[in-house]
């Protein structure tokens, strides 16, 4: 006798903007269990990094994620700078910080818009995305590109921030701040949004720590953890970000925390522009080879702690670059949060984790029952041989 119905959510699903499969086991509408299946979008970026030069890899690794590309470039670049013994000018650090905080604002706006869409609030989705476009415009006038910032360079940034651009950024930020406050109020006060998000996918502080969750998901469960404060990089040691923490641990707390973080980012950008030191942030010559060694680099991406482990054997290319993205922890380890909730809550809970699937993909295959653990070689992957027999 079948005790439950298995419903596949994904790998192609209107609630998911990237391919991932949640095998949901249902008893009526109540979730009995969820298997999270990844592997639909693996691109072999780490391997590609080993084949290319230190400088080219800035562009390769920033393309791991379209939304948080500047933080990928930052994590990689600051690691490589440490390996090469290069210290970027302070002005470059401030410009990098501004770009990363703009990215945090639009990333948090995006996922809140996606949450609105997941609960059928299409109008709110449209309104948030419309305002998010202003942030994308700021990113474009600061970096030259709307989506991929590509402003990081070993030893600095690729272009300076002109005074008139900085002024425009400040002007638009006034508008953005007002809109962020409005949307936060909508999430706080809308009866139906609260009904759909409050108490859904609750994660206690102990559970969040036990399952190694990171970023807003961890902070919404009451753990004050933020790499910008714990291990400051770029200009964060001077700008002093405040860690936003909530204690409810549910989907609503995760979304409201993101609005607060976006508001904190607005403050950080204002402070960065106000206190920006003078000087030339663009490196005159770029170092193209590193000595032997390895480095561990981490930053606070919009989704949480992003880690790069870079190994060099000397020469023009890295020997190994290992990337651990926040989504990998938050998505793969969070199956427990769905149990006991309803099918209608599954997209809500998944969205509240801010999933980035291209960040999550791995091809390490582990079969716990048979004790199998196997890496799939790049060539085998390119031939489509991704199954363990």
């Amino acid at each position: 006798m079948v005790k439950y119905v298995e419903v596949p959510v994904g790998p192609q699903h209107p609630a998911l903007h990237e391919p991932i499969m949640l095998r949901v086991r249902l008893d009526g509408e109540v979730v009995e269990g969820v298997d999270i299946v990844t592997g639909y979008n693996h691109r072999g970026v780490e391997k590609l990094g080993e084949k290319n030069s230190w400088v080219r890899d800035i562009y390769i690794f920033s393309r791991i994620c379209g939304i948080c590309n500047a933080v990928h470039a930052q994590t990689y670049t600051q690691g490589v700078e440490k390996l090469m013994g290069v210290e970027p000018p302070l002005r470059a650090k401030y410009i990098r910080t501004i770009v990363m905080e703009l990215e945090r604002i639009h990333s948090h706006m995006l996922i809140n818009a996606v949450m609105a869409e997941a609960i059928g609030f299409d109008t709110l989705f449209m309104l948030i995305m419309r305002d998010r476009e202003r942030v994308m415009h700021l990113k474009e006038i600061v970096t030259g590109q709307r989506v991929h910032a590509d402003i990081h360079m070993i030893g600095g940034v690729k272009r300076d921030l002109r005074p008139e651009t900085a002024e425009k950024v400040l002007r638009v930020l006034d508008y953005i701040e007002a809109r962020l406050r409005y949307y936060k109020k909508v999430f706080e006060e809308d009866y139906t949004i609260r009904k759909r998000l409050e108490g859904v996918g609750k994660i206690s502080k102990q559970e969040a720590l036990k399952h190694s969750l990171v970023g807003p998901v961890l902070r919404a469960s009451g753990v004050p953890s933020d790499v910008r404060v714990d291990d400051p990089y770029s200009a964060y040691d001077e700008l002093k970000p405040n860690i936003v923490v909530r204690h409810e641990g549910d989907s609503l707390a995760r979304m409201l925390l993101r609005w607060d973080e976006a508001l904190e980012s607005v403050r950080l950008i204002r402070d960065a522009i106000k206190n920006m030191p003078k000087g030339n942030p663009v490196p005159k010559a770029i170092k193209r080879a590193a000595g032997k060694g390895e480095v561990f680099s981490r930053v606070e991406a919009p989704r949480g702690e992003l880690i790069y482990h870079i190994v060099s054997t000397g020469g023009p290319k890295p020997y190994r670059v290992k990337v651990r993205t926040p989504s990998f922890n938050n998505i793969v380890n969070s199956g427990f949060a769905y149990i006991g909730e309803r099918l209608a809550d599954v997209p809500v809970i998944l969205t509240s984790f801010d999933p980035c699937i291209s960040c999550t993909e791995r091809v390490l295959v582990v079969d716990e029952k048979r004790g199998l653990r196997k890496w799939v070689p790049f060539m085998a992957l390119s031939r489509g041989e991704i199954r363990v027999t």
Partner: protein
Amino acid sequence: MDAWISNVVTLVLEALVFPGFMFMMAMIIFTQWWWRKASARMAYRRGPTRTGPAGTLQPLADFLKLLAKEDITNGLMLRRLPILITSFAAGSIITVLLFTPLSPLALWSPFDIVIVLYLLLWVAVSMALYGLSAPNPYTNLGVGRYLALLTVSEPALFAAFLVPPIVAAGINPSTQYSLYWTIMNAANLWTSSAVNATVMAIAAIAGFFAMLGVMTVKPFDFPEAEGEIYWGMFTEYGGPRLALGFFVLFLEKIILPMLYVMLFLGGAAPFSFADNYVAAFIIVLMKYLAVYTLIALIDTMMPRYRPDQGIRFMIKYAITPATIALIFAVVATAI
């Protein structure tokens, strides 16, 4: 005998032309365009602009496009039943307007409100069977949610829609619980006494919520929640079969609010169908458009309830007040 043939021909023409099929097609095209424009305005978009004047013919273009597509069916689905059942539903719901004063030669009989409610129920039955004809986990979940919603919203709708004929019979026994005569006396239902006005107000509120549920308008659109179960009942459908399913649902979105306007919002008041048909018809259309716009705005401004939340809402704010209003109406009429 000649009069009998003439009546049959007139009724057939009414069913096919006005207020039947042709009129309904025109109304669907206009109301869908209006809905899309209203929802676009709320989201700072422009909505349809390209096909026809101000994009008015876009729904027709979409409908023709769906009809022109290849009819794809899978190996496990029932092929004839969805077409048969949705055709029955379309026919039955179009027939409903023949029982109203909108129809130049109206059909009526004592207690015909029961027949009207029976005809309205065909939409629910047909949509459930339409979904179940194409087996799929999402379709089954969608149909399950749809039936659960109908279990609470259809009785609430029936109870609420029964109140005006009962009140009308209390005021004027010659209305005999017929839809036609209830609508002809619709303005008196609110003005005859304070008790009747109260009962009508409760039934009007409950009936409105129930109507949203029956039409699966947000926040009650969980049977087709695309972010959760793809598209529920419609998941397996495309092309002409999908067009047929949509046709029935769009018809429901015209007929139900129109009945609501004629029963609860004073019908053609301040005009009367008996004295000035054209003015009465325009007034009904304007009132309908106001209610329809309100429904479109609610659909645009609201997120979706979870199935259990939606059903709980219906029990609290639709079925309970509708039942209370029905009981009060019966008691007040008996006294």
